[in-house]
């Protein structure tokens, strides 16, 4: 993965990643703003704002049709930590992407009408994904339980529909000026484009945009959890869902890779400890999973399983504890090598295509080490069994855990 990085005078970080094998050019713009930057009384804002970025900019009334006319496509997403926009174009029409992205970084066209419609769209998204699905609102319950201080305490969609409904145009404008500026953005230009061309287009389209400030990214640290937390939710669901979430190191912290691999030993695939014992052999769960949230700041390692009818959820939860304890003591070198091989396969498939690599480069730069994009596989390979188990033992303790039992109403 070849790349070069440079910075414009106004602080815009630019990364060029060539790929002459494609007929596409790609632009990925990452803004250092996510739901962790929101006011706890006005949540869901970063994501709502993402929608508004398509409502027209100073010189361009409609983003999408301009891009489509140039044969391009685009999308965006918001997470706890970032808002990420990406587009692909036939390589010869790349400059259209520069026109579009620079204009909306320069100045969004703030319209009440746009805001009103997108508030409705986002509220329908909230309903579709979180309210109209079985167990859909799980994270609305889990996050405030696990996080009592840090702004990971609410999901990206927002705490409630009303927070979205109450957003005002003034808040939109101030959000834009605070976060959507060159000093707070990382632009990756990838695909069938030369470095010279990238530099030329960046100078032409982005250099006159006022710098703004970089998000310092200081968030109140979540104090160490000292006691187990539990919550029960009764709902119209066919079976009980047990969710256990443990605080773990952040993306750049010691122990992150080890915890990731340990979570794979526990729950990735049919040979994993939790699946093979509790789904296959003992038929306690109809499904079980173990994964990490992968946040920049300290995130969560999560185990979630659906209990088969007729099984006592308390017994099911005890079995989870027992399986984890065993793994903490006797996870083998072979298991570790297995999950390293799986991880290698995943990384190779995920690194396919200029767009995927562009997103990865932007994200690693945001975390503070762009070389991680290339070295990630090596970091996983270097994890040794004993330090991994020590890191896992520190994380997997009931005092560090938030548990939710989401069960049928009767």
């Amino acid at each position: 993965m070849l790349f070069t990085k440079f910075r414009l005078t106004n602080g815009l970080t630019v990364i060029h990643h060539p790929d002459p094998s494609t007929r596409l050019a790609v632009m990925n713009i990452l803004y250092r703003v996510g739901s962790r930057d929101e006011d706890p009384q006005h949540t869901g804002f970063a994501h709502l704002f993402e929608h508004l970025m398509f409502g027209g900019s100073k010189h361009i009334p409609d983003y999408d049709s301009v891009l489509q006319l140039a044969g391009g496509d685009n999308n965006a997403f918001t997470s706890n930590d970032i808002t990420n926009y990406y587009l692909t174009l036939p390589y010869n029409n790349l400059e259209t992407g520069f026109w579009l992205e620079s204009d909306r970084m320069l100045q969004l066209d703030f319209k009440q009408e746009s805001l009103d419609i997108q508030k409705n769209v986002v509220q329908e998204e909230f309903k579709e994904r979180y309210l109209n699905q079985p167990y859909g609102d799980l994270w609305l319950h889990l996050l405030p339980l696990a996080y009592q201080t840090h702004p990971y305490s609410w999901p990206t969609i927002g705490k409630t529909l009303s927070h979205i409904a109450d957003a005002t145009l003034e808040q939109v404008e101030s959000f834009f000026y605070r976060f959507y500026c060159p000093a707070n953005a990382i632009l990756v230009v990838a695909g069938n484009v030369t470095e010279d061309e990238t530099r030329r287009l960046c100078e032409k389209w982005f250099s006159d945009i006022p710098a703004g400030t970089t998000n310092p990214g200081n968030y109140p640290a979540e104090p160490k959890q000292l006691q187990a937390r539990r919550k029960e939710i009764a709902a119209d669901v066919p079976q009980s869902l047990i969710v256990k979430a443990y605080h773990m190191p952040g993306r750049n912290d010691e122990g992150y890779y080890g915890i990731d691999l340990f979570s794979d030993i526990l729950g990735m695939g049919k040979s994993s400890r939790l699946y093979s014992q509790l789904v296959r052999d003992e038929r306690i769960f109809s499904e079980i999973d173990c994964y990490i949230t992968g946040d920049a700041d300290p995130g969560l390692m999560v185990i979630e399983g659906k209990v088969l009818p007729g099984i006592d959820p308390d017994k099911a939860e005890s079995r989870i504890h027992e399986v984890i304890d065993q793994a903490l003591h006797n996870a083998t070198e072979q298991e570790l090598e297995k999950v390293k091989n799986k991880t290698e396969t995943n990384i190779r498939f995920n690194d396919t295509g200029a767009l995927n690599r562009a997103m990865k480069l932007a994200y690693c730069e945001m975390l503070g080490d762009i070389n991680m994009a290339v070295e990630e596989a090596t970091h996983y390979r270097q994890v040794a069994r004993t330090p991994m188990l020590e890191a896992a033992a520190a994380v997997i303790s009931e005092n560090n855990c938030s548990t939710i039992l989401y069960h049928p109403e009767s």
Partner: protein
Amino acid sequence: MSLNRTIAPSTRLITSLEFPEFTRVTSNSGVPVCFVHDDNLDVLKIEFVFEAGARNQSSLFQAQAAISMLSEGTPQRTAAAIADELDFYGSYVQPRYGIDESSLFLYCLPRFLKPCLEVVFDLLTNSNYPDYELITLKQNAIQRLKINESRNSFLARRGYYAAVFGSENCYGSSVYQGVIENISRETLEQFFLSSIKGRLRQVYVSGNTTASEPEILGFCNGFSVVQKSEMVIPTLQSDQPYHYIERKQSVQNAIRIGRKTINRKDSDFRKLQFLNLLLGGYFGSRLMTNIREEKGLTYGIHSAIETYRDTASFYIETEINKELTHVGRQEIENELKKLQELPIGAEELETARNYMTGGFIRSFDGVFAITDRIKIILDNDLPLTYYSEFIEIIQGITPLELQDLANKYLRFDGMVTIVAGQE
């Protein structure tokens, strides 16, 4: 000279499409294998295609269960041993059940191809459906079904296929709890013997394939080739235009509207695909523009043509504001009528054309996307010029033609409407 941001950069449409290279080889036993090569990609994705879809089954759920259980046990290897072995090599084996055909996908690192193929050979030759694993499959499938039945989108979809095709054939039938409970091991073994064991229809290999050719061909020599069954399955659309599936405590409704339509064999198909794009096939479509971006009634609405071997369906799908569902339904009907009655404007036509033409660059970008296109070409006996012709068709289509197509294929009065939720 300061920058003038009011002037759009000039653009040019790339309309040329050279079909990428790929290799077709036949094993000594007659199994056709397609290799799509990319030196830079040190992974392999292999698809083994069987003539083993629902159309080949003799009872409900037979094909799906038999395909799902392909890694659950052979005389030589237990389910646990299979999982341990495949996972150790960092590989993923995913069965995919379909209505017309089924597949097994193998994703692996090239250096582990040989041991992975040994396991896969065992699975495809000797799977024996152990009782214990079958009970587990049934229990877990029933739980998944119960969870799905509390999703409006699932209920709407299930109701839709029954209404459009009839519930007594492989296109429109659904699996209910009783069927899952009652399926027997013998039924699965029967299907394995009749449709999977020792036979393949086609194999696709993509990624860093160079070193893999001898291994794969050697593997395929253990299988005989089977041809596509061209049997046409009779279907019957419901004459009831509106179906309501109530689910109490819904906060949103799911809608599906559609009908049977033409598939790739028909000369109008590509034109209809373009018309579908205009109606609801991309973010700038009529449906998205009206129902999401102007009225804010939904997070997403789209239309699609789903093709099968001997039929196809056209549908519009959305999850929509509960209180204003009737508005959404009326607007969908209005949009269908507008396509028939009003010629499309030049700007909208050019935008959609350019978007779709640019889309071909995307859909031919990278070895996995290319393999998907090759599969469509080979499976449907289409010429290699199919997609470059497609671009010509899109470039040449007129507003009048689009209206005629809309009148022929998108009339609301030939469609069924399914609403799941609380209306």
